[in-house]
């Protein structure tokens, strides 16, 4: 193997050396000839000229030699290829099975790699993406936060103005905005960006210009917007006159100043931005929440990016930013906002916070998909390996059948190296054809996967595509070469070791043992790999089942939901409040609707509103987790089918503007904060960094625990406030309990909402079951794919086992005949064959078990509700394989038992 690689390398470098060699040889020839002429009496100069004349053009001679060298190799290659194609075509059954096996393995592997590459591996399409880092603060921030990667606006300014390691910093904030253009309204994703965003990223404009520093200098001053290229094409039909025109964002008139370079959709792949707006327009783009002009340090919301100076590594930069952060934290810890939120002990913890730098191409989608996608690539790798084992086994069998042909070729003078090369070439041809088919398969598979995985309305705009690009093709080519070596080398080397004399002798009796031991080992490998795949399929399918069975804690049949946000259509606080009051009535009177609930935070979508609380009963006590909160309408609990365990629900009479007075809590909240007491009439308060809070919110009711963010969580402590009391109205999630199948109501509901207010779009309309199902899409993807892989693997292993046993039985026909002639019973013969079958399976299972147990820790985080070494899954997989393998082995065993001794012996 290594020596072959070396030969390949030498061949590449040999060309030049050969050319030099030849020049020297020619010179020697000329000199010798000239000498001869001198000896014959010619003058030296004359002799030299004559010699050259006789030779003809030196360049031509040189070229002729070169042609010969290239031609010989090319000739031989073409000959080998022709021969290989002919051999494969002569045996179409074998070739088709081999190609289909490979196509399956390659297809699965390429499909998964394509997704992994696009979602997890690829860097942002910007200048020097490797220099780009996300700057975040670790540890508790003692305030409100939009996520782990965010910091406050003043913190960003401090870091930007005083850091020693970046050539520049920018920040961004993702927002959903209402778009008005002509009579169209829609909600689109926008990225609010600082003026340094485009220059530091090095992203230019395809049309017009991008946002510059002076667009982003003074709050509210520049209503300008840059469109993403794909949005410009899809929504504005690539209209070049769009620059200079105005579009409405949240009903503010914004001037389009340009279109960003194609392929760039913002820095977060998971929410591709359609428009870019200066972050100084924050107040207009996110009504009722600011964070910019009032400069709160306890609200972290911007994601900060830095471009490392050339030669500065991520680690160096991280280390040299720590003192700067520490000085900022020390200053913040003295501020009243911080001290209202935290105790002296908290302060110590807070001052230990650190700066952490992440690669700039990181995003939420990458974070959640990294492990599942690597896992799936690993599983498909196992499938491919199994396919290779199958092919190696097939080729070994064929090499045995071809022994005579190979012996003949050796006898008439083919070198063994040539035979190895010929056999490897055949493998490569097979692998090439399999890869072509596999690429087609991968394309189809990716399309189906993306359609399942993504909500229908975003699939077209998602950055991930099923079309293979250069990187995927390179990957496929690499894997193809590797696989053809893996499955081709062993049979090829064996084939070249054919003994001429043995093979050419007339053999009408027993087939040669050719590779049967090797093939048995390969079957062991196959069984082991398919056990691995079956176990993982079992674990992931049961994880999905466990999650699906969990349920959110309330009945979800007949529940329809959507979200709606009138503030994105330019509605004021009062208009928004009136909008929801009228909407409540409007929907309650809709035919087919039983009840209507509204909440500020959507259920089971992964978000939460959290806040620290205080009360005289738990002052100073350490609080394990902050409660999650929500604003809901009076009928919310009724609509979701959540009963009240004690007290009463919220009513319209609880409306006391600008202040929370009453709350409904869940059992966990009661247990955590009022242990051993009647929770009704207890009081608590919300910690607020703007003023000192007092515990004056009265508990009026208690509901059972239900889930809030996602299915995996244990229900956190929860408190619900009347939604009319919310001083900052934004979007609401609406829940409709319907009388019949909720899907039947979807169209009528859209129509009714259009009549109600055509300016405010309905977003994310779905049944709650669909919504929960969607939240499990990653788990479903992993479970269904691993189930498919497990099935394919089992099938391949069973075919492999059958092939080897069938061959072994045929080879031993005579022996079996003799045994039977000597009085062996049919059952003895069956037992003899089956013993071998189960030894093979058993060895494979043992190896597979060891492998699966060793690898279990790698999948632990993807598993819910069972152990990664779950004995039932392991045992079940082993039983499935044993039964399937046993059945496959039974066929040759039965055939062996029906051998007729007389015929078998006469065969000789």
């Amino acid at each position: 193997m290594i020596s072959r690689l070396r030969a390949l390398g030498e061949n590449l470098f040999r060309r030049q050396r050969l050319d030099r060699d030849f020049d020297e040889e020619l010179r020697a020839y000329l000199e010798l000839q000239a000498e001869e002429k001198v000896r014959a009496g010619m003058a030296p100069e004359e002799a030299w000229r004559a010699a050259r004349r006789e030779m003809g053009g030196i360049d031509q001679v040189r070229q002729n030699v070169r042609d010969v060298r290239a031609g010989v190799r090319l000739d031989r290659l073409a000959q080998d290829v022709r021969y290989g194609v002919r051999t494969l075509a002569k045996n179409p059954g074998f070739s088709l099975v081999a190609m289909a096996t490979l196509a399956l393995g390659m297809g699965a592997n390429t499909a998964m790699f394509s997704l992994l590459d696009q979602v997890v591996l690829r860097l942002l399409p910007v200048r020097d993406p490797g220099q780009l880092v996300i700057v975040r603060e670790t540890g508790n921030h003692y305030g409100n936060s939009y996520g782990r990667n965010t910091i406050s606006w003043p913190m960003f300014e401090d870091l930007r103005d005083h850091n020693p390691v970046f050539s520049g910093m920018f920040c961004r904030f993702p927002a959903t905005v209402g778009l008005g253009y002509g009579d169209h309204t829609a909600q689109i994703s926008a990225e609010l960006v600082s003026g340094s965003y485009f220059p530091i990223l090095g992203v230019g404009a395809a049309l017009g210009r991008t946002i510059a520093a002076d667009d982003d200098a003074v709050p509210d001053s520049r209503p300008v917007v840059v469109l993403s290229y794909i949005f410009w094409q899809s929504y504005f039909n690539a209209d070049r006159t769009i620059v200079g025109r105005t579009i409405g964002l949240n009903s503010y008139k914004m001037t389009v100043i340009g279109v960003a370079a194609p392929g760039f959709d913002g820095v977060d792949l998971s929410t591709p931005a359609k428009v870019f707006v200066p972050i100084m327009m924050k107040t207009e783009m996110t009504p009722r929440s600011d964070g910019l002009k009032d400069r709160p340090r306890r609200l972290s919301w911007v994601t900060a990016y830095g471009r490392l100076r050339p030669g500065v590594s991520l680690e160096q930069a991280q280390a040299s930013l720590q003192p700067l952060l520490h000085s900022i934290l020390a200053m913040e810890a003295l501020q009243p906002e911080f001290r209202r939120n935290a105790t002296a002990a908290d302060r110590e913890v807070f001052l230990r916070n650190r700066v952490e730098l992440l690669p700039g191409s990181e995003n939420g989608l990458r974070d959640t998909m990294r492990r599942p996608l690597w896992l799936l690539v690993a599983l498909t790798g196992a499938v491919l390996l199994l396919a290779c084992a199958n092919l190696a086994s097939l080729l070994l069998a064929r090499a045995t059948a071809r022994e005579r042909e190979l012996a003949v070729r050796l006898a008439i003078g083919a070198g063994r190296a040539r035979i190895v090369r010929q056999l490897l070439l055949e493998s490569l041809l097979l692998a090439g054809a399999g890869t072509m088919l596999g690429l087609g398969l991968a394309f189809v598979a990716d399309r189906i996967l993306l359609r399942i995985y993504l909500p229908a309305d975003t699939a077209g705009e998602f950055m991930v595509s099923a079309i293979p690009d250069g990187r995927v093709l390179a990957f496929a080519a690499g894997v193809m070469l590797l696989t053809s070596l893996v499955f081709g080398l062993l049979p090829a080397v064996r084939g070249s070791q054919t003994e001429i004399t043995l093979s050419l002798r007339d053999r009408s009796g027993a087939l040669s043992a050719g590779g049967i031991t090797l093939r048995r080992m390969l079957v062991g490998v196959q069984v082991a790999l398919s056990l691995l795949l079956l176990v993982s399929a079992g674990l992931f399918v049961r994880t999905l089942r466990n999650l699906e069975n969990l349920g959110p804690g309330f009945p979800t049949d007949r529940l329809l939901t959507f979200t709606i946000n009138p503030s994105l259509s330019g509605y004021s606080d009062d208009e928004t409040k009136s909008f929801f009051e009228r909407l409540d009535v409007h929907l309650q009177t809709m035919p087919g609707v039983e009840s209507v609930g509204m909440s500020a935070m959507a259920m089971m979508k992964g978000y939460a509103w959290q806040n620290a609380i205080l009360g005289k009963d738990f002052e100073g006590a350490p609080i394990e987790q902050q409660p999650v909160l929500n604003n809901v309408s009076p009928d919310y609990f009724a609509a979701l089918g959540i009963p009240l365990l004690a007290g009463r629900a919220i009513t319209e009479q609880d409306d006391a503007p600008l202040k929370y007075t009453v709350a409904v809590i869940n059992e966990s909240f009661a247990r955590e904060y009022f242990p051993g007491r009647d929770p009704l009439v207890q009081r608590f308060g919300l910690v607020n960094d703007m003023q000192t809070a007092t515990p004056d919110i009265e508990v009026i009711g208690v509901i059972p625990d239900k889930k809030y963010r996602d299915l995996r969580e244990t229900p956190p402590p929860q408190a619900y406030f009347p939604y009319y009391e919310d001083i900052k109205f934004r979007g609401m999630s609406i829940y409709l309990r319907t009388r019949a199948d909720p899907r039947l109501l979807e169209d009528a509901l859209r129509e009714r909402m259009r009549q109600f207010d055509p300016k405010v779009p309905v977003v994310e309309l779905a049944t709650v079951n669909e919504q929960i199902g969607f939240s499990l899409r990653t788990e479903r993807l992993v479970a269904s794919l691993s189930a498919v892989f497990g099935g394919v693997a089992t099938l391949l292993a069973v075919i492999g086992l059958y092939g080897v046993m069938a061959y072994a039985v045929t080879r031993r026909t005579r022996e079996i005949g003799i045994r039977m002639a000597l009085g062996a019973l049919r059952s003895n013969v069956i037992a003899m064959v089956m013993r071998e079958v189960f030894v093979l399976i058993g060895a494979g299972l043992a190896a597979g078990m060891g492998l699966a147990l060793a690898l279990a820790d790698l999948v632990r985080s993807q598993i819910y509700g069972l152990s990664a070494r779950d004995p039932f899954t392991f045992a079940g997989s082993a039983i499935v394989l044993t039964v399937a393998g046993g059945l496959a082995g039974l066929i040759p065993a039965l055939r062996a038992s029906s051998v007729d001794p007389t015929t078998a012996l006469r065969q000789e």
Partner: protein
Amino acid sequence: MPVPESDLLQGTLDLLILKALALQELHGMGISRRIAQITQGAFDVKPGSLFPALYRMEEAGWLISSWGESETNRRAKFYSLTKAGRKQLHTESERWERISLAMASALSNSQEAL
């Protein structure tokens, strides 16, 4: 056995080179001289056809080459026959004899017919 003309000519040169090298290893110039000698000057092989043939035959595994010193102490590349080359010389000679016999008898017959 019918042999196309071009093949015949190429085969001739190959056979001559093999024959020239049958006794001892030679460099390019030496092969050329030796062929002229054994064919009584009938064949004067020019480098333009000699070297391509040498390289082709080396690739085919009939010849092996190494650098050495010529009779006048110059560095030159020497060619010698391999085992496969000797075998090739043997089979080619037999084939050639068959062909030339056949040709001779064919030509003498046709002369009689004239």
